[in-house]
């Protein structure tokens, strides 16, 4: 075996004692193979790969096991020997590519650093070789990009640079740790295809670490499923996803949004999906909404004349990639931003009467609420869950928080014993519940959900989506569901609009848009989303196409 990890254990010393992050993990990889390590946060999938690279943080150490790379035991190597190996034999691509690059060093120089470190270039040849490395990852105009700083490049471009650094010295093993998390789906596809092609053409082995079953199924020859620091199942992706042995794998597959599944189907065991309320009178009308930032030469149109209606009890999906104007649109509806033109009507009365700066004291403020993408960053870290939920009750309603907080917590399924905890003492799913309870506190009629599940693991996402569906059935509230993922949006939405470059390119019922998209952009969005494996297995037509 080219890479053989046997019985690997990694532990971290923390203030509360030793934490075993990885417990007896084994996997192996042959030359030219791609191994997928799949798992949710805290499963130890990244830590295992850091252990292979021997770049664990200071508090972590390899507590046991062997890592054999091409016959050499990596755990027995000195730090100096290991540094020689890194970048030359084994290299790594990370998530969040912009942060993974030195912000104040030209990208060309960062590539040169690696080339010169491993004696692949001299002072005189470094520049040409760095440009060559940029060209290899298909960066257009590499001569000009050589002088760029990371902040001047898009996320996808930054990831190409990170890949160029990783591949500069022709390593034999590449470890990609969630390489496309945070990138748009279309960019994700381009980056993944590029990685797959480059590793294949150079005969490299690779490890893909991901939480996305679809991605793993599409790009890997072998899959290892990890949970709580241990491997629960391993095997060929097709067989593994068609017939998962372990309950956890089954739950993961089930929780992944896929064509044909209802929101209740994501749960283990499947639950009946909550009833969808019948849409009533128009609640929110948006007419010809425009937002222009900057002036003169630096003018940029973020939202370019969009119109839509949300009825009472209806859910509208707003789908698009980063920079399409969906966040600007929701900020204008929330009255955090003043539009440049157009109208926003609530119950037929213009919301834009009150300028954004004064809207917090408008009596209609409580009718609109928002659930944010990052539950951690959007809750005051010094507020307990109780204080976070009570805050809008005090500010936006005449009710008393006592009693109402508990009622809301019960509504969102947050155990009352957790109410006095601080955000850092809560799990991701619990924080999401706090965020939803807080948004419901003022009894809103329209809830703007801004990628409410994007930061969550799939199994938690399934639970939160079901919670949102239940709340809608119970309270009759309308949702504007903003997301980049059509598969997720479809589960909750009656209608969907697709935005691109500030314009609506497609509008229709969720099913129709998914089944027969009329705009090529919607098509490309759908195609770029890696097909969840259960869908391939469950739908004969798709299975045939995937052959």
């Amino acid at each position, binding site marked *: 075996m080219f890479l053989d990890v046997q019985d690997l254990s990694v532990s971290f010393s923390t203030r509360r004692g030793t934490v075993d992050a990885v417990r007896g993990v084994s996997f192996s990889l042959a030359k030219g193979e791609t191994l997928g390590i799949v798992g949710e946060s805290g499963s130890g999938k990244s830590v295992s790969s850091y252990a292979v690279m021997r770049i664990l943080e200071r508090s972590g150490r390899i507590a046991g096991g062997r890592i054999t790379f091409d016959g050499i035991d990596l755990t027995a190597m000195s730090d100096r020997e290991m540094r020689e*190996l890194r970048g030359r034999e084994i290299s790594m691509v*990370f998530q969040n590519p912009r942060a*993974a690059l030195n912000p104040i060093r030209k990208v060309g120089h960062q590539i040169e*650093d690696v080339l010169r*470190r491993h004696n692949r270039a001299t002072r005189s040849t470094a520049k040409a070789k760095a440009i060559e490395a940029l060209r290899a990852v298909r960066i257009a105009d590499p001569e000009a990009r050589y002088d760029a700083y990371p902040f001047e490049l898009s996320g996808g471009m930054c990831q190409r640079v990170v890949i160029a*650094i990783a591949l500069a010295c022709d390593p034999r093993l590449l470890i990609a740790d969630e390489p496309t998390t945070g990138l748009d789906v279309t960019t994700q596809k381009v980056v993944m295809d590029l990685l797959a092609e480059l590793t294949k053409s150079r005969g490299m082995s690779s490890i893909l670490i991901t939480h996305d079953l679809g991605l793993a199924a599409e790009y890997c020859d072998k899959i290892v499923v990890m949970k709580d620091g241990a491997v629960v199942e391993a095997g060929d992706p097709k067989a593994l996803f068609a017939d998962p042995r372990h309950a956890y794998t089954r739950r993961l597959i089930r929780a992944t949004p896929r064509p044909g599944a209802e929101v209740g189907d994501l749960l283990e065991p499947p639950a009946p999906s909550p009833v969808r309320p019948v849409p009533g009178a128009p609640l929110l009308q948006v007419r010809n909404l425009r937002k222009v930032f900057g002036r003169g030469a630096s003018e940029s149109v973020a939202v370019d004349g969009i119109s839509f209606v949300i009825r009472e009890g209806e859910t509208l999906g707003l789908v698009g990639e980063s920079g399409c104007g969906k966040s600007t649109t929701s900020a204008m509806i929330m009255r955090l931003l003043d539009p440049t033109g157009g109208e926003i009507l609530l119950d037929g009365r213009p919301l834009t009467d009150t300028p954004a700066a004064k809207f917090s004291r408008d009596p209609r403020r409580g009718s609109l609420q928002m659930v944010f993408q990052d539950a951690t960053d959007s809750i005051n870290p010094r507020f307990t869950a109780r204080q976070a939920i009570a805050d809008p009750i005090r500010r936006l309603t005449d009710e008393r928080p006592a009693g109402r907080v508990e009622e809301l917590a019960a509504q969102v399924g947050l155990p009352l014993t957790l109410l006095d905890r601080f955000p850092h003492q809560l799990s991701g799913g619990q924080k999401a519940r706090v965020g939803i309870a807080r948004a419901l506190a003022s009894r809103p009629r329209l809830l703007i959900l801004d990628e409410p599940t994007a930061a969550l693991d799939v199994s938690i996402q399934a639970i939160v989506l079901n919670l949102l569906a239940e709340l809608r059935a119970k309270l009759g509230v309308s949702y504007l569901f903003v997301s980049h993922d059509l598969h997720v949006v479809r589960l909750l939405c009656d209608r969907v609009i697709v935005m691109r470059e500030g314009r609506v390119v497609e509008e229709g019922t969720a099913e129709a848009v998914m089944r027969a998209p009329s705009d090529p952009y919607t098509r490309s969005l759908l195609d770029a989303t890696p097909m969840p494996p259960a869908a391939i297995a469950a739908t004969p037509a798709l299975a045939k196409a995937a052959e």
Partner: protein
Amino acid sequence: MGPRTKLVLYRTLQALPALVGVVIVSFILTRMLPGDPAAYFAGPAATEASIAEIRATMGLDRSLPVQFLHYVQDLVVGDLGNSLSTGQPVVEELTRRLPASLELTLTALLLSCAIALPLGIAAAVHQGSWIDHACRGLVTAGVSLPTFFTGIVLVYVFYYLLGWAPSPLGRLDFVYLSPPEVTGFYVIDALLDGDVETARGALSQLVLPATTLALFTLAPLARMARAAMLQALSSDYVRTARAAGLGEGQVVLGYAFQNAMLPVVTTLGMVFSFMLGANVLVEKVFSWPGIGSYAVEALVVSDYAAVQGFVLAMAILFVLLNLAIDIIYTLVDPRTREG
């Protein structure tokens, strides 16, 4: 003209309004000081008439805008007026004393950086080790001991007990002659003159006061260097650099420290400014003929031309210092070059 030169020029232009503001504020502030300079100048035996006469010759009977105009006119030709107590032109006194203060401050700052930065970096790289604890101890001592106290202790130990240091009486022992003035910094001037003996004499006078000041400024610098380095070392780009196999030296100094420089430079600016304030005490302890002691003496006797000149000189120094820091920032961090 390259984009960097352009940006440096632009930042320099941006400093001009600040300088104009300084001139206006220093003018108004000194007019608002209690006491009547005319009455003071006329002396205790003066009559109403003589005070009025003096006020007229000093131009103080005119309206504030007219006075300001005269003040600016004088300022343009470099005239800050005469000191009331010594009768000397303020400009001359300041230009004579400023180099003394700057020599002391800059030496102390260099000394402080030379110790604090490596110490902060080492403490961050070996977090939790003995060097980290040593760093913490030195930082605590540095901030908790006032300069006049450390100054006196140093004089007591190194001059009185050990006799290693010369007597703490100014910039140069009386056995030496002041070197011909070029930069105003005695050590450099003496070296330029080829007079190694005098240079050594000036340097030995400088050691104790500079150490006193450096001990005081060490603390914030070392602490900021450590914190900024810790943050940089735990960043994603350092992880990338490590994963690419870059050597520890390149990772720590090339990647982490360059990024950690930014907050350190900001702290350096702040340290420099409160150092000029702390100077006053150190100059007193070591009889250093700097502008700090000059300003204190002037304040005590309400010598308003001198005070005004001092405030203006300090303010200009601050503006220039901030300009220098802005420019360094621009050169280090490409992100600030936008717009």
